[in-house]
């Protein structure tokens, strides 16, 4: 449908309007912003209905021509993009409605909604774009918006730092994405995703180039989807307002990476070795962060690590050629995780608490929020018949079919861990004794503007399981829809389903035992837990690397540039060591003759280069 571009354009248009004129608009601009994303949601239905009648389509206009290459702004309408359009627009809509009340007292209320609009616009543009150029543009915009939203409370030092961390870390991956796109462009002469995929499938691109390109694209996906070792930004990203975390963790930023791999899936399939890397790295990420989720005590931090773990799970699915499973899990996770984050926000709103050590017995104080939160947790833990159960089984089936027994075993361990940490949350937060005096006094249910999105998301989290068998309007399951050319029905493996149910049940029993009955298992595992609590020293490692390597490297280049080259040549090497500390600060000597000597030396070097390379 030609109008699909409005889905991205409407929030985009809302951005400058709300940002600049928010004060004078109805609801301080929030209504405009919500209306825009609402329009996107409506367009999802129109586009979806139209798509079911007419099949895949693709429209583009020329942005500008560069030499012989046409750089286009275009959209692709296929099952994947329609599917993503739905997920993104519904979650963004829910989050914005929720924010109306949650962010009510913010002085920069309008700016918040403006950036929310821009965020939604970039994400919708990302999932609709039919070429790598537009995809990269929107990809960068998503990063920029995350910077603006995570750093929304920029007065808070930690928020400003977290925002910078998220922006810079994901941009490291983006370098890979850009180079990958350029490698593919060099090989095919086109940025159009369809053209590139065709070239990859028909073997026009050499397999070496293809693998390099696929891995570079995956590097981009690793940054955005917080895969090890670029996952460090995501837990810090909770410094932003809670609805922002919901949006980032559930439906926008982090799924961009998974989406990219899915969109470029034929390229990964054609590139030998690429899918193995995706799968293994996903599994590693998932296991590592699942254990961290088990020991963190900040509610949002547990959810953040669980997000990374589930993203790893999706990557594992894609790496196991479980396209349907991966994308399916993306949806069920998006609904459940948005629900959990908004629920966590509701808990914080009602009790003022963020650490689960202070919580307990909330079930009696906030029954509605608790019910909804628990539904989300159960879905993510994989309890039947909620959404997460079906998508997890779909992934397990893919792993079973395409990976060895080792991977399957590790995946089942992962399933146990996910059940365990979700069960831990449920038991510690909602049941058991009330561990805080304040929460007993102040706890109250949240206002309806916050509850309605929760109810809607809970409905989706519960019912999304049915999509495996029946997607409204298509008459068939999600598998057939996503793979519309070579339909793939939901294929249950009964023994695997039973195994996974047993594992989930075991997880809940263990958690019940530990957190309700006080089993002393945790004591025995203390060393492991401590390791996990220190985030496997990843943050320390990064900080150390940044402190030692990057800054020292910068200093070294400067030092070499100014001191070793200059003074070494003029004053001899004596005294250099003594001056190093001082020189670090005054590395540019400021002396003309030093500069002249470097120039003369450089000419000699260049002369030698030219002569020798001739």
């Amino acid at each position, binding site marked *: 449908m030609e109008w699909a571009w409005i889905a991205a354009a409407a929030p985009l248009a809302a951005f400058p309007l709300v940002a600049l004129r928010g004060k004078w608009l109805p609801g301080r601009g929030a209504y405009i912003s919500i209306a825009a994303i609402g329009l996107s949601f409506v367009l999802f239905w129109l586009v979806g209905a139209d798509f079911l009648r007419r099949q895949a389509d693709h429209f583009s206009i020329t942005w500008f021509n560069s030499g012989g290459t046409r750089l286009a702004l275009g959209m692709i309408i296929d099952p994947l993009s329609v599917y993503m359009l739905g997920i993104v627009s519904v979650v963004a809509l829910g989050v914005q409605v929720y924010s109306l009340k949650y962010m009510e007292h913010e002085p920069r209320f309008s700016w918040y909604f403006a950036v929310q609009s821009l965020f939604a616009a970039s994400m919708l543009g990302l999932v609709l774009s039919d070429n790598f150029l537009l995809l990269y543009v929107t990809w960068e915009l998503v990063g*920029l918006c995350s910077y603006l939203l995570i750093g929304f409370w*920029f007065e808070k030092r930690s928020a*400003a730092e977290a925002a910078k961390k998220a922006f810079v870390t994901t941009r490291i991956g983006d370098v890979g994405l850009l180079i990958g796109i*350029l490698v593919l*462009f060099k090989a095919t002469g086109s940025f159009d995703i369809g053209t590139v995929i065709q070239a990859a499938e028909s073997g026009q691109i050499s397999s070496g180039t293809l693998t390099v390109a696929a891995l570079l694209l995956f590097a981009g996906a690793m940054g955005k989807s917080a895969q090890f070792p670029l996952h460090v930004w995501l837990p810090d990203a909770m410094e932003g307002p809670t609805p922002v975390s919901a949006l980032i963790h559930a439906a926008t930023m982090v799924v961009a990476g998974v989406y990219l791999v899915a969109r470029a899936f034929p390229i990964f399939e054609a590139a030998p070795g690429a899918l193995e890397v995706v799968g293994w790295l996903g599994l590693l990420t998932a296991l590592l962060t699942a254990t961290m989720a088990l020991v963190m005590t900040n509610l949002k931090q547990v959810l953040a690590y669980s997000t990374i773990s589930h993203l790893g799970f999706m990557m594992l699915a894609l790496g196991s050629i479980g396209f349907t499973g991966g994308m399916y899990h993306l949806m069920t996770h998006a609904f459940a995780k948005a629900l959990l984050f908004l629920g966590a926000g509701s808990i914080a709103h009602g009790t003022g608490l963020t650490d689960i050590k202070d919580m307990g017995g909330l079930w009696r104080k906030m029954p509605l929020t608790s019910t909804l939160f628990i539904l989300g947790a159960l879905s993510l833990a994989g309890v039947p018949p909620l959404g997460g159960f079906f998508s997890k089984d779909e992934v397990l089936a893919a792993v079973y079919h395409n990976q060895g027994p080792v991977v399957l075993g590790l995946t089942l361990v992962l399933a146990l861990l996910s059940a365990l940490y979700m069960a831990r949350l449920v038991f510690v937060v909602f049941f058991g004794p009330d561990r805080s005096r304040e929460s007993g006094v102040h706890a109250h249910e949240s206002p309806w503007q916050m509850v309605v999105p929760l109810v809607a998301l809970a409905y989706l989290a519960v019912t999304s399981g049915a999509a495996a068998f029946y997607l409204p309007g298509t008459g068939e399951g999600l598998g057939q829809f996503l793979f519309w050319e070579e339909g793939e029905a939901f294929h249950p493996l009964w023994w695997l389903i039973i195994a996974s149910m047993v594992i989930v049940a075991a997880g809940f029993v263990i958690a019940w035992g530990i957190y309700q009955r006080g089993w002393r298992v945790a004591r025995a595992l203390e060393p492991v837990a401590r390791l996990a609590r220190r985030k496997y020293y990843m943050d320390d490692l990064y900080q150390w690397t940044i402190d030692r390597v990057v800054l020292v490297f910068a200093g070294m280049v400067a030092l070499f540039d100014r001191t070793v080259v200059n003074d070494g040549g003029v004053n001899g090497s004596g005294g250099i060591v003594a001056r190093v500390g001082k020189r670090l600060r005054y590395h540019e000597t400021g002396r003309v003759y030093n500069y002249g000597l470097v120039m003369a030396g450089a000419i000699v070097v260049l002369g030698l280069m030219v002569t020798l390379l001739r």
Partner: protein
Amino acid sequence: MVDYKLLVPQFLLAGLAFGLLALDLVLPPARRRYIAYLGALGLVGIVLSTISLRGQEAALYGGLFLIDNYALFFQGLFLVMGAVILLAAEDHVRKFLGHAGEYYGLVVVAVLAMTVMTSAGELLTAYIALELLSFTFYVLSAYATRDLRSNEAGVKYILLGAFSSALLLYGISLIYGATGTTYFRGIAGAVGGTLSPGLLLGLVLLIAGFAFKAAAVPFHMWAPDVYEGAPLPTTAYLSVAAKAAVFGLLLRLFSQGLLPAIEVWRWVIVALAAASITVGNLVAIPQTNIKRLLAYSSIGQAGYLLVGLAALSPQAVSGVLVHLAGYAATNLLAFTAVIAYYNETGHEQIEDFAGAAERAPYLALLLTIAMFSLAGLPFFAGFTTKFYLFTAAAQEGLLWLVGLAAAMSVVSLYYYLMVIKQMYIHPSRHSPRLRPGFVLTGVLGVLAFAVVAIGVYPGPLVRFIETASKGLFS
């Protein structure tokens, strides 16, 4: 017979420059600000005469001086830059510098020199124009006569500049001796095949001389000192105009004169590019002075431009031109915002920008836009132009260099964000709101519009540039 109609812009520029100098003598000090406005008006008027020449192809004085779309593109760019600098400088010159008319006159002389540089079809013409440009900048850098740092900048600049141009001149003499000509096209006929050692040395000296003017590592060491010491408008002008003019000259010289020897010099340029990108971006991190930070950032930008020179396909030349235009708008925006802030506060340390968002929200927003554009974020000129440039370079097989450039632009994001963070941090003391003048505000608005326009809809610019750069290779 020389068609003088084609030289009207140059004549008008010379006339305007002397006119502004003369006005300084006539007008009372209170009215001297009108010299800047008049100069800007004059430059914009000359743009019209440049536009009227569009599409002309001519070689004047037997090929010494070339008029084509390529030259005219740069002419327009320099004229607009000159006008922007005049308007941006006016407030600053009135408050901190003396001899307003001379300052503005020299700015216009620099425009004249740059238009000749990009029109030169021969080394002598290029050399004379380059020296004219350098002399004006020596003086403009030392313009704050009572400021020790400005004095120092001027002395350092002229000592090193004269040194580098002596080496450049020696290189030219060797090339002349080996090829028997100084015309670019003539050189092209003589540099195919194996090159004699004299010619190689000449080539290296030539590249070194130009690398100095473009502030490419390792010939960059003058730049941070001069950028920091010189008065702000001079720094702004130096960072965009001088760089653009040098690249305008280099691209013509390399594509028309040295293309047959590309295998010989490509690696030299690649090495300079890689070094500039790395050093410029890394050393920018620990900087505390905004001018110095922008100096190192512009060294990095010179590296990106050198990537395009190393690729040297018609597409890559277009990439350099597009990036130059986008970079000019972005850097002028950044500097104009800094000038406006400095005029009101007298501070130029990065830490002094704390609280800028509250004291001058408009300035802070525009400086943020400029920083985002410099870091290459989409919707701003920096993204589109860099993407175009890198695509062209990737097509020529310089992928690893593009990778380095992309990686270093992540580093650059880090230090640009530090400036932004500083502006949005609230200072402890309560400071009054800043109100930059009407003209400065207007200039800032126009530049910000240009940055966004090039970022969002580069089509028309790219189309014109592509016709311009195609001419170089015909």
